[in-house]
């Protein structure tokens, strides 16, 4: 049986496991403060390559997040354009109190919210901001737990362990990455917003709450629901005999 090294500090490691585990603070290619100051200097000096790399690094994520606010793709693309313009307009005034990434996401969220409100007034997107997922939703299908006796609510059969190299292998295949994107797109908007900001972009919980105007508790419920759904989707994919090559 697998031995688990358990410490109360909140970190836990499985043996033979080479991946970074501190996922709650995992920031994707996040820059150190020094690197970021350097990038900022270059941007302010008008370094085109610096701006190009910024755009390349964030554009698709910004679009993904914009889609979680306005749902219409062409509107989302406009929102991202407006965001970049907003970035340029604000660059001189940006004081570096938050990370550059957080600042860009805040601009996008504000633009997208404004747009979302406008859209919902003028079009049929009235369901956009609705809290359609307020009911209780179990993380795991209840049929996977025993229903009676002392062991009620314990696993009736254990989940299948996934391949150790799951993130890499799954994302290496175009099919796998596409499947994951679909699973994310299938999430209701409020779940998607939180998941994108927290797990895909690695923003801090507080920052996300500020931007979305939700409480930390509420945010965690949404995040947990979103993660659980994506896990279920990956499980179906990995166990459906369509294992990524």
């Amino acid at each position, binding site marked *: *049986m*697998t031995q688990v090294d*358990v410490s*109360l500090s*909140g970190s836990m490691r499985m043996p033979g496991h080479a*991946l*970074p585990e501190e*996922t*709650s603070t*995992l920031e*994707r290619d996040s820059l150190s403060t020094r690197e970021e100051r350097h990038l900022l200097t270059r941007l302010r000096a*008008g370094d*085109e390559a610096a*701006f*190009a790399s910024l*755009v*390349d690094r*964030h*554009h*698709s*994520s910004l*679009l993904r997040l914009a889609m979680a606010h306005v749902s219409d793709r062409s509107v989302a*693309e406009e929102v991202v*354009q407006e965001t*970049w*313009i907003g970035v*340029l307009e604000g660059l*001189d005034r940006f004081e570096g109190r938050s990370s550059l990434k957080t600042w860009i996401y805040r601009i996008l969220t504000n633009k997208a919210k404004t747009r979302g409100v406008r859209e919902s007034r003028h079009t049929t997107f009235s369901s956009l901001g609705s809290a359609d997922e307020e009911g209780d939703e*179990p*993380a*795991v299908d*209840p049929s996977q*737990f025993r229903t009676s006796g*002392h062991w*009620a*609510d*314990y*696993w009736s059969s*254990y*989940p*299948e*362990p*996934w391949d150790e190299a*799951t*993130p*890499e292998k*799954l*994302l290496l295949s175009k099919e796998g*990455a596409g499947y*994951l994107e679909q699973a994310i797109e299938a999430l209701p908007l409020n779940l998607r917003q939180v*998941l994108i900001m927290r*797990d*895909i972009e*690695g923003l801090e919980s507080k920052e996300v709450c500020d931007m979305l105007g939700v409480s930390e508790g509420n945010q*965690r419920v949404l995040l*947990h629901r979103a*993660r659980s759904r*994506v*896990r279920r989707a*990956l499980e179906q994919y990995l166990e459906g005999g369509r294992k990524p090559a």
Partner: protein
Amino acid sequence: MTREEIKIYVFDYLAGRMTCKDFVEVITDYLDGTMPFFRRVRFHLHLGMCLGCRIYLRQMRQTIQTLGRLPEQPPPPQVRDELLQRFKTWKPR
């Protein structure tokens, strides 16, 4: 009863019950570090005894890692050019 089950039985008795169904609902609280101390102890006890929940927690971590590594796609060339153009006109200050 298996050995696993006996251990769970004992810990339920000593530290209060946490079922697998409870466990899978509090993983984000745990990962975010917002779990109160005694709850966290209970969580670790359950984790230490329950292979199913170890597998499940591992899957949740793998899910989060996978999300964090989704590849970035550069914007379509014309969008990129337009933005760079805009940057050029912004630049002289």
